[in-house]
């Protein structure tokens, strides 16, 4: 059996990116930060997809994470990045634990559509709430890091570093998790739920846990996004946000956490590029690529890599 070098590879890329952070041009750093924020949310989705569930509503928790960071700064007077992110983790954890009780009874299209419905409810609520800036959203405070307050442009370097450490750190942990008992239980649930129950594992329990974990990761991503762009708005909970997460997961494939992180980065660069040259055809472009992937590359870009490796 080949030795698994994934953990080492992820750690090396992480250190390299953190070191390179201060030297990158500002636009590249911003695109990178957003890409990694999305990667965190999609890593959560990866857990669900491995369990055989597609959620069209991860935007719900992405938005909760972002708004938690925003409200924490605006109303609670917090500025510490870790405290702001923790707020999102707690909020999303509580809400997902409750909604999860309902959702863990459903599979397939029901799961997909109910999760979408929940995120659209939050979108509707936030769009109507005057206090939280309705459809415009509001600005997020400039974060500090454990008492250290970097000045001016340096804040973005720190946020980028935080995003790198979190995304790759979570990637490494998830990679281990997927190979643990609970990780394999996911795939067992996807393949055959009744046998899983017969073996004495509660499928609903597995689904519930994965749902909560996925929610927390999406909230982390939303928090990072809020700190990076300095602004949150209800469109974070809109169906297009959740749809983009699903798209990234399909683009990369669910074989490996590296596939997700690379796909998130590729996605963000293509998005930046396409929306610049032709703003009204971005969704159409997404849709066409999505159909092409489903038709010709159902296991995502990562399967190309695996195919090349097998051929050599």
């Amino acid at each position: 059996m080949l030795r698994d070098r994934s953990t080492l590879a992820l750690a090396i890329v992480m250190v390299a990116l953190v070191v390179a952070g201060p030297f990158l041009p500002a636009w590249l750093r911003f695109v990178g930060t957003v890409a990694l924020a999305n990667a965190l949310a999609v890593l959560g989705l990866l857990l669900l997809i491995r369990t055989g569930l597609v959620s069209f509503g991860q935007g719900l928790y992405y938005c909760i994470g972002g708004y938690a960071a925003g409200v924490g700064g605006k109303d609670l007077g917090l500025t510490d990045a870790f405290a702001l992110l923790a707020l999102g983790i707690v909020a999303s954890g509580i809400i997902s634990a409750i909604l999860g009780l309902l959702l863990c009874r459903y599979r397939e299209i029901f799961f997909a559509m109910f999760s979408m419905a929940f995120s659209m409810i939050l979108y509707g609520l936030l769009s109507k709430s005057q206090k939280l800036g309705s459809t415009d959203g509001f600005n997020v405070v400039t974060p500090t890091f454990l008492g250290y307050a970097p000045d001016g442009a340096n804040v973005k370097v720190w946020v980028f570093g935080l995003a790198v450490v979190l995304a790759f750190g979570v990637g490494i942990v998830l990679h281990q998790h997927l190979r643990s008992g609970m990780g394999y239980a996911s795939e067992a649930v996807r393949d055959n739920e009744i046998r899983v129950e017969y073996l004495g594992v509660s499928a609903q329990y597995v689904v519930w846990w994965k749902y909560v974990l996925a929610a927390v990761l999406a909230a982390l991503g939303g928090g990072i996004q809020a700190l990076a762009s300095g602004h949150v708005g209800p469109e974070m909970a809109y169906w297009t946000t959740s749809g983009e997460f699903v798209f990234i997961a399909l683009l990369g494939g669910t074989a490996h956490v590296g596939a997700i992180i690379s796909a998130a980065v590729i996605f963000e660069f293509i998005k930046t590029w396409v929306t610049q040259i032709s703003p009204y055809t971005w969704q159409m472009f997404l849709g066409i690529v999505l159909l092409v992937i489903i038709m010709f590359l159902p296991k995502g870009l990562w399967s190309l890599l695996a195919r090349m490796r097998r051929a050599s």
Partner: protein
Amino acid sequence: MQTLIAIVVDGVIYASWLFIVAAGLTLVYGVMRILNLAHGSLYAIGAYAGASAVVWYFARNYPVAGSYALLVIAAIVSGALVGLLVERGLLRLMYGRDEVVMVLVTYGVLLILEDAIKLVFGVEAYTAFQPYEKMGRTSIGGMTFATYDLALVAVSIVVALALWWGVNRTKQGKLLLAVIADREMATALGINVTRVFIVTFVIGSVLGALAGALTAPAIAVAPGLGVEVIVLAFAVVVTGGLGSIEGALVGALIIGIARAAAVHLWPQVELFVIYGVMALVLAVRPQGLFARAGARKI
């Protein structure tokens, strides 16, 4: 008493609109096992086609009566064209895939259609209020309602009767029922399932477009119209039971009246009522009111 009348009439109006959208969605699912997310886009396409046809029509000062026929024609033409294009051009290549994969496929179609609508009709809002205004208002028990809205109820009843008659009293309908009951067996018996699929998808698409076109005079037709509709229609359809037309009718009535009650009595919870009713029904009957429970995979 006044409030009660208002709740019932508003609820029935809202329900009749919901039913036309939901019937198309549930019909396509029942026959083809495809939850068509692009159904909302067909609604938007119908709305745009209807609105732009009406704008064109009134710019020429033709008599008002013709505009109603024009709305229906615009819906049928645009819905049938786009439906046929989507089914023949794409879905045909994907049959037999997993239901979740089909949702993703229709999600791709939704994305493409959303931008296609913007490219064809632009991003400005269309207003085609004349058919709505010219019908005037009718009073019921001391309350006045727009006659156009009441006419929508009549249209919805006609659609429901036509669907019921088509499915239960015609030969084509019997073939459809056979396909719903067992697709493989129906194929083995010599039913042309491909043709049934095409016809079903086109009818479903036309229903979506019809709902859009009939709503167009009452609203400003602007981008992003279709997506809220699909989420709402899905709520109706699962409440009634996915794939059941009677279910869509009952689901639309329950949700329509519940929403109207919320609007009149407690407006803050309007958004929750729709999903609250859905959650309540599903808590008691997880498969919805009218659908049979499926066997579990072993």
